[in-house]
């Protein structure tokens, strides 16, 4: 008879989430001799979202190949990878409640790395009115249905509409086409954006879903203000990312108001000593290679923590202003190494001005010789960081056209 009480265990590093970020962190930590490094992955297979991204674009690999490589690297380095195992809550500052088919566990670690990823905002949270028919998907569900469960046209739908203006909308269209589902239109809310496979209704919005039982159409208002019904039995709401921050939040890990991910410094340390965060959890989606790089980056700070380095003070908060929607990391130690920031604009900006101020002081001002798009991030090395006053107020980063 197995235990009817949770099993208490300890490890050196507990990584929650076996996607690109968590696996990269685990691989580097295990290789660096961090002791027992355990990765918890709630799905039946590790690898995260790339497992069901059948296309290329993951540093020259397809998504599944990228996922397999990440899994192999972590296992080879000696990390313990556990699939079908979920972290469901906290039992203490560095202890997680875990549910597994083998029973309940309470795992205490010297360091916890949260790498739980991100999801697309569903139809309900977008407050799209109308009926509640079958045939309403996210790209995540669509990709899994097609790539992991092999569903095709007869099981997905006969005619689809895709909603969104990010590159993910393109992926949704391609996935639908691969499954043999014709795409009636892409409803792209922004008037501009990456090339999308047509027909594309730019600047259009979804007003209502129609259909009883099964979706029968999507009522759309075009950029010209006219409304029309797009007949379809499937609609895919894409993009509009939300970090999967629930585990972090339920553990009292403070969030950054602009990203809704945990507030982190350049070492990807959260405000809770011993707890780190990496990957899409920090702010929604970036390419898989970026998430993996963050996983590798977090390992250095974890190793320092395991070696006994004191947990740094919160440091300076970076605030967003103007057309800057979000940036990561959102905290800075002026005395430490200057981090590279990922900046995401709210709107398309042609040669914008990047300005950094602290209190009444201008730390940096530069016209950037680039075109910024709301679906892409700009990497900006915070060369101005050493000039910030560690005792001063928040640092405000502004993008203006």
């Amino acid at each position, binding site marked *: 008879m197995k235990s009817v009480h949770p099993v208490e265990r300890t490890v050196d590093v507990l990584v929650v989430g076996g996607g690109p970020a968590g696996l990269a962190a685990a691989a580097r930590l295990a290789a660096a001799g961090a002791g027992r490094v355990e990765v918890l992955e709630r799905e039946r297979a590790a690898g995260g979202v790339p497992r069901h991204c059948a296309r290329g674009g993951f540093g020259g690999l397809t998504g599944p190949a990228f996922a397999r490589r990440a899994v192999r690297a972590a296992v080879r380095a000696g990390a313990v990878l556990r699939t079908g195992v979920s972290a469901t809550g906290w039992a203490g500052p560095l202890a997680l409640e875990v549910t597994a088919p083998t*029973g309940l566990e309470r795992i205490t670690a010297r360091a916890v790395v949260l790498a739980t990823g991100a999801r697309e905002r*569903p139809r309900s*949270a977008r*407050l799209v009115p*109308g009926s509640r028919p079958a045939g309403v998907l996210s790209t*995540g*569900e669509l990709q899994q249905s097609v790539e992991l469960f092999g569903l095709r046209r007869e099981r997905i739908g006969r005619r689809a509409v895709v909603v969104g203006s990010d590159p993910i909308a393109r992926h949704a269209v391609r996935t639908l086409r691969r499954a043999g589902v014709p795409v009636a239109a892409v409803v792209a809310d922004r008037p501009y954006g990456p090339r999308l496979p047509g027909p594309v209704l730019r600047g259009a919005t979804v007003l209502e879903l129609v259909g009883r039982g099964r979706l029968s159409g999507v009522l759309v208002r075009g950029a010209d203000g006219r409304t029309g019904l797009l007949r379809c039995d499937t609609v895919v709401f894409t993009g509009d990312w939300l970090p999967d921050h629930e585990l972090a939040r339920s553990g009292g890990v403070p969030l950054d108001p602009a990203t809704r991910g945990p507030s982190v410094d350049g070492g990807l340390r959260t405000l809770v000593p011993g707890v780190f965060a990496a990957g899409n959890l920090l702010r929604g989606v970036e390419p898989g290679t970026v998430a993996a790089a963050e996983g590798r980056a977090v390992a250095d700070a974890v190793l320092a923590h395991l070696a006994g380095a004191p947990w740094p003070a919160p440091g300076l908060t970076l605030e967003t202003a103007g057309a800057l929607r979000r940036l990561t990391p959102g905290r800075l130690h002026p005395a430490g190494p200057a981090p590279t920031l990922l900046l995401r604009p709210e709107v398309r900006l042609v040669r914008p001005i990047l300005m950094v101020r602290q209190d009444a002081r201008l730390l940096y001002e530069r016209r950037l010789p680039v075109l910024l798009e709301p679906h892409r991030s700009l990497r900006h090395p915070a060369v101005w960081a050493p000039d910030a006053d560690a005792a001063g107020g928040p640092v405000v980063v502004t993008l203006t056209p």
Partner: protein
Amino acid sequence: MSVTRTGALPDTSAPDDAYDVTVVGAGVVGCAIARELARHSLRVALMEANGDIGEGSSKANTAILHTGFDAVPGSLEARLVREGGQLLAAYAEETGIPVEPVGALLVAWDEQQLATLPRLADKAVRNGHHGTRPLSAAELYAREPHLGPGALGALEVPGESIVCPWTTPLAYATQAVRSGVDLHLNCPVEKVRPGEGDAPHRLVTRRGVLRTRFLVNACGLYADAFDALLGREDFTVAPRRGQLLVFDKFARPLVRHILLPVPGPLGKGVLVAPTVYGNVLLGPTAEDLTDKTATSSTAEGLAGLRAQGGRILPALLDEEVTAAYAGLRAATGAEDYRIAAHPELRYVTVGGIRSTGLTASLALGRHTVGLLADAGLELGPERPLAPVRMPNLGEAFPRPYRDAGLIARDPAYGTLVCHCERVTLGEIRDALASTVPPASLDGLRRRTRARAGRCQGFSCGATVRALFEEGVR
């Protein structure tokens, strides 16, 4: 005992094979009536137009187990809500339907509403509810610290509870079927040929003709249409739509009680209430319509709810919405139910069960069986109902994913499938193999909460669907 979804209805042409009673409509009311009938050695059928029970008004309400403190004193509704509330609270305990007696606060936002509170307290007394208590603004804010500014006071109504609206009719239907009732789904009754003298009525459906000696109309919004099949035109049902928003579980700590609006000349206002699943509900609107299928939400409706919710509980709007839905109440112009026995027709109409039917359901069941007996149905002796124990969907009670003993016995309860709602493989498997199994993914959601969470299937949708399709095959 059986559940049928397709094929010809059982042959009831021989005199002995006719059903004793047929209940038409498997909403919470019809299911409760069928369950009550199952106490007796009768042949009972429950007929439902949809492919599952509870697909009408019963699936989309506010999920409050009322005390009846604000009913119209002396009305049938007042009595049945009071009795039904007590019966359901006890039944819930026995069968595992999640209920939380969080209590309600009627919050006054202006002087006029404040002045109304004593009258509501009097009305509560006349409805047999003696526990209400006025709260000062300071007491109110101590109870509900996240309440928006400007509240002047409240009336506390202990005993108002939240309940799982899906497990409730499912428990009734399950118990009815296990106790011998035949549930025929996908079976709208299109015509009724009343039996002459003692001859059974003939109910015409696309799955064949069913004969029954007694007939109960529990058709909800369509109770008037069904009455018309028997030549009765006693009332008409007009749908009154209620739109609602469900907020993410992180909103749950923002509210401790059911926050009721004070009814006033400017309409009823909306309530904010926790749900037994650990979410927060905001709504409902009240819109008088004519289309009985108009269960869509509207842009104005949702925007209006957010505006009102933001005043009641400002921090609510910072949380994500996990669902928006709309339900239709059966309004008949009367401030009461429309229940009528027609002994000459061996027929009882249970209509106009407007906005309290979930609460009153068990009392409605009893009351209806009494009316049938008065109309000449021989009930015979009572026998015990088959026991039921429902799977728990409530956050206030142990869930399988945290139950070490259960997981030790069966690892399927340690395998999470729907991560947002913590639904395990074991629970999905159980639902698919249950007495009244789901007919659709929505039916599975109502039985397990799979896909009902914040990601709405982003992570688990494909897996849940595969399990459902495998299980159904």
